[in-house]
């Protein structure tokens, strides 16, 4: 009898453990490697992916949901995607974007693509944020943007019928905090890869350029004319930016200090990050303050509109004459080339639409 009792008791314990195991079974997120385009693989260094935030299918999916969800804003009216729309290569068409209270920021919304290849990891026009995760952290509480607090956002997400389970799947915990929110958003943002422009296809031997586009590329690469390549990439650097900060001669008197306000170094006053020239067809207006409505305005600026200041980049040449004075034909050809950097597949990528 005693033997039977012992046997039943042990069986009961095993059953309990077994049931308990089923309940606490954890979901293991599945790794999702970035699909690195051939031109990137061949020509530039590997993307920056932090060891503590590796890409996973569940993390990316969660990040996408958060990116499009106005729940991150104080009054549930504004999502990241409102100022970073796919059809505009994840920027918007406004000079300055308005936040939840109708207030406007002082900088043009930046487009979002190829962010994992920002090797110095300095984000925003003025480089005030280090790492993509930290970048995603800031707009939520900016009063001119989403105007919320992280405590509020965490609470709303925690009470949401779906999010706790999605965080469980992505990060192995249903306890939601700002770190995990920004990690998920950063994972999604790293998947925003643009690499299928006409010029990419030309480099891959899949298409040809017109004579005007080719001449435009030569102007771009010519130190005596466009000289764009020193800061904006080349056929060997498909990012089309150096992700470095320059004063490109916009103003004689600098009112927005840009990088200088962050570093405190007057030598950095008026310096802003070189934006990528990819997708210019979708990202007007241009410059950190969106002052130029068209690409013609931009080209005219570099050609004859340069203004001297103490921190103007030495690569801005013939400043006393306003620039190198490109011919009308060279301007037209340069523009034709720049537009070949636009990636229509990117802005029509179904992976990037609202879930």
């Amino acid at each position, binding site marked *: 009898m005693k033997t039977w009792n012992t046997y039943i008791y042990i069986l009961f314990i095993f059953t309990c453990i077994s049931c308990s195991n089923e309940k606490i079974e954890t979901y293991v997120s599945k790794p999702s490697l970035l699909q690195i385009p051939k031109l990137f693989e061949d020509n530039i260094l590997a993307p920056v992916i932090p060891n503590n935030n590796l890409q996973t299918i569940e993390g990316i999916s969660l990040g996408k949901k958060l990116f499009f969800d106005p729940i991150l804003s104080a009054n549930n009216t504004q999502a990241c995607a409102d100022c970073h729309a796919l059809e505009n290569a994840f920027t918007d068409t406004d000079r300055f974007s308005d936040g939840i209270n109708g207030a406007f920021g002082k900088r043009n919304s930046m487009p979002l693509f190829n962010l994992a290849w920002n*090797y110095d990891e300095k984000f925003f026009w003025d480089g005030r944020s280090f790492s993509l995760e930290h970048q995603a952290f800031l707009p939520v509480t900016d009063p001119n943007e989403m105007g919320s607090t992280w405590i509020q956002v965490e609470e709303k997400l925690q009470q949401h019928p779906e999010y706790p389970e999605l965080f469980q799947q992505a990060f192995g915990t249903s306890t939601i905090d700002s770190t995990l929110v920004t990690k998920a958003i950063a994972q999604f943002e790293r998947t925003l890869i643009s690499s299928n422009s006409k010029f990419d296809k030309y480099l891959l031997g899949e298409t040809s350029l017109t004579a005007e586009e080719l001449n435009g590329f030569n102007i771009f690469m010519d130190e005596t004319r466009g000289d764009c*390549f020193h800061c904006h990439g080349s056929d060997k650097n498909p990012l089309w930016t*150096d992700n470095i900060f320059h004063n490109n001669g916009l103003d004689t008197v600098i009112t927005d200090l840009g990088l200088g306000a962050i570093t405190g170094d007057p030598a950095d006053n008026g310096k802003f990050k070189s934006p990528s020239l990819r997708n210019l067809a979708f990202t007007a207006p241009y410059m950190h303050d969106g002052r130029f409505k068209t690409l013609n305005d931009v080209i005219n600026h570099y050609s004859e509109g340069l203004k001297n200041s103490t921190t103007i980049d*030495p690569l801005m*040449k013939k400043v006393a004459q306003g620039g190198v004075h490109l011919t009308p034909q060279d301007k037209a050809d340069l523009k034709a080339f720049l537009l070949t950097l636009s990636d229509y597949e990117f802005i029509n990528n179904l992976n990037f639409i609202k879930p």
Partner: protein
Amino acid sequence: MKRINFILITCLFTVISCNNDNDDQSERTNITLNFNHNWDETPFTNANFNTIQYTNANGEEMSITKLRYLISNVTLTKPNGETIVLDGYNLVDVTNNTDLSFTPITAIPLGVYSSLSFTFGFNNDANYNNNYTDLNSVSWNVPEALGGGYHYMQLEGKFIDNTSTETGYAYHTIRAVNNSGAIQVFQDTFFEVNLGEVTVSNNSTFDIEINIAEWFKNPNTWDLNTLNNMLMPNFDAQIMMFENGQNTFNLKPIQ
């Protein structure tokens, strides 16, 4: 038969083992090159950037806002003439205060060498026959219209010009190319920097002094008023830079 095989294998192992012993007899080490900068003996770092505080040989007041240059082909020559070329290259980035020290991965035997040298820039084989992802990533390329390959140096800043205006200069060195004729004509502008005899002991460090003022001084007194920008396609300017670069690098005597 089995016994013979066994003896043969034993002999083979013995021979291999002896070979290894011979290799191990010379102790090896890595060396480190430190790149220190000065303006006519006044120490220079990126803390001295951006302020017009230097006067070049032509009398122009000037500043430096960017300085980075490439060295490659670090070579040690034994007294018997045998050379050891150390793998790798290094982009010295004074602007960002990075890679001012270079430790090639190749370990070399300790001892006295008749010379330690390196190449300023890339030789033509290294320049044209490789695609360097790290250099592409920092926009170090030279346009194909100028022959392609890579920059050797980017030195930029401001100077006070003849009209008392603060003006930018971009002193970029590349392989000289003359595009004025029907056929491109090239002239090599990489050069060997020979630092002379050195003794290599464990983890030897060599301090190399670079006098930036030399780029504007000797043998060509550089006039920034006429040569300040668009110098990459300027064949004559590239040759002058090449000539001025010869006396820029020196090995600091070991104290």
